[in-house]
């Protein structure tokens, strides 16, 4: 019984990890890749480790396994947020099929001089970085991403 439960969590986790790998290779721009990698990777490995916790069924080992889940679910989204912010900041282009970008026109997009992280680092590097803060992101499309016309069907089942 315990093994069946653990085994099904293993299979689920393996499938999600597979999908994370496929997603990161197949998605067209950095942000969609981040979505695929963060979500599928975190839940996939989370499922695997939950299976391990069920499998060992021992106070110490299961607690350690649950601790790994806790760390993953706390750190993975924070890491994704920081990479996404940095990527947007240096002007990594969005996919040509992107329909709306409210951040581009927003007045508060640059990471300002009073930013916490920048202040912590200090020095000449911080000066140099803040000078180039308010440049607009690169409007040219990605080199590797050929433009596609986003035609979508209205009866898409996953559409909200």
């Amino acid at each position, binding site marked *: 019984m315990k093994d069946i439960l653990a085994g099904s969590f293993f299979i689920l986790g393996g499938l999600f990890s597979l999908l994370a790998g496929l*997603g990161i290779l197949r998605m067209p721009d950095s942000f969609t890749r981040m979505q695929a990698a963060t*979500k599928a990777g975190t839940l996939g490995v989370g499922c695997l480790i939950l299976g391990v916790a069920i499998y060992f069924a021992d106070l110490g080992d299961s607690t350690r396994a649950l601790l790994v889940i806790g760390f993953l679910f706390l750190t993975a989204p924070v890491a994704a947020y920081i990479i*996404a912010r940095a990527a947007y900041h240096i002007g990594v282009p969005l996919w040509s099929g992107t329909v709306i970008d*409210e951040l581009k026109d927003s007045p*508060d997009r640059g990471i300002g001089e*009073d930013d916490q992280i920048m202040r912590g680092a200090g020095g000449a590097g911080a000066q140099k970085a803040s000078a180039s803060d308010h440049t607009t992101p690169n409007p040219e499309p990605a080199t590797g991403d050929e433009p596609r016309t986003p035609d979508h069907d209205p009866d898409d089942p*996953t559409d909200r």
Partner: protein
Amino acid sequence: MSAFMWNILLAFVWAVTTELFTPTNFVIGFIIGYIVLWFAPSVEGRRAYFLKSWRLVTFLFFFIKELVIANVRMAYYTISPLNRMKPGVIGIPLEDLTDSELVVLSNLITLTPGTLSVFLSQDRKTLYVHFMRVDDPDKLRSEIKGSFERRLLELTR
């Protein structure tokens, strides 16, 4: 939170009296202590404790549900043709949130359906979120505000 302390104490007493210090037994003791507290009117902060714990449980279930939906949808996007996607970045206005509430909210947004928090404006009033599929920006905005933010604020305030 003294009602919570009482609950821990009751669980501990249960574990001692049954002479079985396994986590399962401790959880059973915790549940029994919870039921006992339900009938103990004199413990202070009891009502708030029950309300909070109920909200915490429903929040956890809501989160797990959203997480599973998110991954099924992500799987769909991964294996279907790319032109099913209509990604976009949308700004979501926020209430006055504390630091920890912001962390929890942006983590939730990142882990749930087709959304990834990208940027928080400097006045902490707007969170820019990358969506996998944007059809109606205003509808998505009100969805995030209505489900995630409302539930989180119910839990913490």
